[in-house]
């Protein structure tokens, strides 16, 4: 079994379309009112038709009350880590601890270079991300003595001010697919945040990818359960007949999500589609039903679902 025992989270993956700025914020408010736990926006600063994700996160956070927010995921190459850490902590303070940090090594290097960013190879990007995460945690740690000095391969700084200190321990969730990134995730991250559509074999890839993260966590002397497993589902549909994963009637969604939670240890389910009515039903109808079943099965100790064939 691979249920890591985390509370379940349900979220919305909202397209940050600049032409629909008002609707984007409205959808975040809808998710908040529907009782969802997360609102997230992708971060592609070189995509001209998108809003700036950091700005949108702060604005949407101010317009919502309970929902937590995260970038899904932050493009580190264009978000210098100390700046990112301070912005994240600031938003966490202002929102009363509602900010989480999704982060990735960067993709679409042509776009990054076009914005003036540094072009790195995949392997270099992994190391840069590891350094970035260390700097972010240093900046947040206001109890450590002195200023932050760091001498890395890709980032270095002498005497940066610490703080501000976040309102809560902001988890760092890493978008990862390839072995080196999964190893980094297991070694240092608080969560793994991929999209199901990008896994080589969809949900069937989960045992293998989870095992890589677990192995890396063990190697680093960590409990694999320290790494929450989150998942984006970009293409979802509510329909009368079951047609596929998160494409069918609500009851089928519930079965599929319960299965992913108890069998594959996924504990956060973030849906795309930008549809207010699906968002509402996800929060009001599907999430409570899933929680009920998972809680019951966890209590019954019935979590020993057989692994996927």
């Amino acid at each position, binding site marked *: 079994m691979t249920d890591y025992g985390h509370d379940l989270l349900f979220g919305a993956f909202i397209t940050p379309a*600049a*032409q629909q*700025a008002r609707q984007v*914020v409205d959808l975040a408010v809808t998710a908040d009112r529907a009782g969802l736990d997360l609102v997230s926006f992708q971060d592609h*600063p070189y995509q001209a038709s998108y*809003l*700036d994700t*950091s*700005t*949108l996160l*702060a*604005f*949407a*956070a*101010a*317009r919502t009350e309970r929902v937590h927010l995260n970038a899904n995921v932050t493009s580190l190459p*264009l*978000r*210098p*880590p*100390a*700046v990112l850490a*301070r*912005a994240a*902590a*600031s*938003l966490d*303070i*202002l*929102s*009363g601890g509602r900010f989480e940090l999704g982060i990735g090594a960067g993709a679409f290097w042509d776009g990054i270079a076009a*914005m*003036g*960013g*540094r072009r790195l190879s995949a392997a270099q990007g992994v190391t840069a991300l590891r350094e*970035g995460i260390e*700097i972010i945690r240093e900046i947040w740690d*206001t109890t450590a003595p*002195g*200023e932050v000095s*760091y001498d890395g391969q*890709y*980032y*270095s*700084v002498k005497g*940066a*001010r*610490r*703080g*501000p*200190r976040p309102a809560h321990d902001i988890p760092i969730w890493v978008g990862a697919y390839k072995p080196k990134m999964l190893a980094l995730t297991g070694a240092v991250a608080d969560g793994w945040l991929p999209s199901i559509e990008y896994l080589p074999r969809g949900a069937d890839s989960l045992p293998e990818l989870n095992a890589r993260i677990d192995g890396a966590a063990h190697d680093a002397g960590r409990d694999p359960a320290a790494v929450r497993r989150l998942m984006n589902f970009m293409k979802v549909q509510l329909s009368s007949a079951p047609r596929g994963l998160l494409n069918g009637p609500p009851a089928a969604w519930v079965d599929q999500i319960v299965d992913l939670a108890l069998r594959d240890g996924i504990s956060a389910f973030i849906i795309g589609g930008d549809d207010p009515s699906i968002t509402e039903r996800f929060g009001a109808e599907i999430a409570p039903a899933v929680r009920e079943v998972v809680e019951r099965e966890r209590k019954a100790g019935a979590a020993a679902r057989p692994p996927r064939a």
Partner: protein
Amino acid sequence: MIMEIGIVLDASRLARAPLETVELARLAEERGLDLVVVADAATGTSAGLDPWTAAVWLAGSTRRIAIGAPAGATTAPDPTDPQAQYPSVIAKALDSIDLLAQGRIISDPAGWVVAPRDAKPAELARLAEADLPVVVPVDSREDVERLAALAAEGDHRSGVRRRSAAVRAQRKPGIDYDGVPASLADAAVEPGDPQYRSLSSTYLRGGAPGLVLRPSTPAEVSDAIEFARRHRHLPLGIRSAGHGISGRSTNRGGLVIDVGAMNTISVVDPVRRLVRIGPGATWKQVAEALTPHGWALGSGDYGGVGVGGLATAAGIGLLSRNHGLTIDHLRSVDLVLADGRQVRASREHNPELFWAVRGAGANFGIATSFEFEVDEVGEVGWAQLVLLSTDIEQSLRRFAELASSAPRDTTVFLVTGQPRAGTSTIQLFAVVDNPDPDTVVARLTPFLELGALAGQQVVMTPYSGVMGNAADVGPNGHQGFGEPNSRSAFLPTLTPEFARDAAAMLRSGGVYFFELRAMGGAIADVAPGEASFSHRTPAFQLTAMGQNNQRLNAVWEPLRQHFDGLYLSFETDRSPERLLDAFPAPVLERLRTLKHRYDPDNLFRDNFAIDPRTTKEAQA
């Protein structure tokens, strides 16, 4: 005087007491103050809140009050410095907050004046003389209340709409914003206004005008022209629906007079089929309004185009071979001239001006109303065919023969681009003005030999069904960006040599859009001297668009030997010699004389401007 007052919140106070500090901003908004600024005055070893994040949060937490959010670096950072931001990302953040908070952000720290914490009213008034909001650091609700009382005391605002400091901070230099005539003030749009983005760009061109004036009556057009005359140093664009290619109906930092609101369509005389149409109507709207009467007025080939620009150029369209040019139906036009006078031009009134407006109208005034005599047009055959050709040269030659020898009820336009793997995709757009479906099919069938048929849609429809192809422009307006590169020419005939050279041009990849519009028929029934558009006898009008202007010129130049003149509407080249292509020398001379009479200071110069001061000698 008007004094705008705001508050300064300290970033480290925000870190220590976020909720109470944000409440101070909300209180300032409730009390009618004008601006909140976050200052990064943090000292010591621990940083205060990130000022940008805090400013955005404040913008999200309020609805009306302006937010001062100084943006960061403008130079390229060292990528190894984890504290150095990318200017490109900062620019994007600014653009985004402008969209999200709808123009409430002042990003330039020079957009406000900071007063000392204990400033007395007299000192605040003195600082306000810079016509900038004065902000005062505050720590408590009492501080905000005290400021609000001061502001209320000194408030002598009149009933005039006054824009916030955040909006005024985005004003462009050289424009007398506060001097906009009262008749236009309510509808005028400037860079900080919420509607600005929907009006700044046009169909094919990006822009950032300093002010868009939107008159809705001839008198208001006159006021707008008077205002434009006081800003002769700035570009001036005249816009009806924003499809202009040669006509620059947007610009950077200049003025735009947008007559889009003048879009009424009414029948004046049902017996003579006289119709009165405003310049801001689109041809889609015109076609829809005329269909119930069984009438149509030929336009171009796209329903989104506005009446004003096209009806003052020519109007070579899908009904032209049977019904002539759009200008051939014009009976009179009401204009506002450069001196602000409202005049009518027709055969009886100001006939010289009437001649000039039909071809070079953009040089002479702003049309406020057109009277057209329209034709009875029933259902037409409307065909959109896609054909694949492996020999574009041969296809062009054959198209020319078929399109020119077709009966005049048949008007066919050909569009193609660069061949891919040796195969050209040809699109044909054809109207057969004949209610009999069999005749329509018979007229179109010969064209099928131009290539292998890959797609076809043929319907019987009123002309409104043809113009209905245009997408409606939504609340976000046009989304053009950059500058279009377009060349235009008339072909007296389409020769085999032209077909050969055009095929070479298409293969070069320098042209992504290539259109041949068949002319002839009723167009040539009218004498060349009837209107300043004098190109009555060409067989085709050619348009070519390219991504890169230099490359486009390089591949276009070898074709020039085949041309005789150009249709100005599709030409973006502003070289002086293009004027002589648009207007043959005697026509140009006559226009210049009239330009000297009607617009001696060359106020109207956004579309093939004829400089009244240039003499024949100076050109030689």
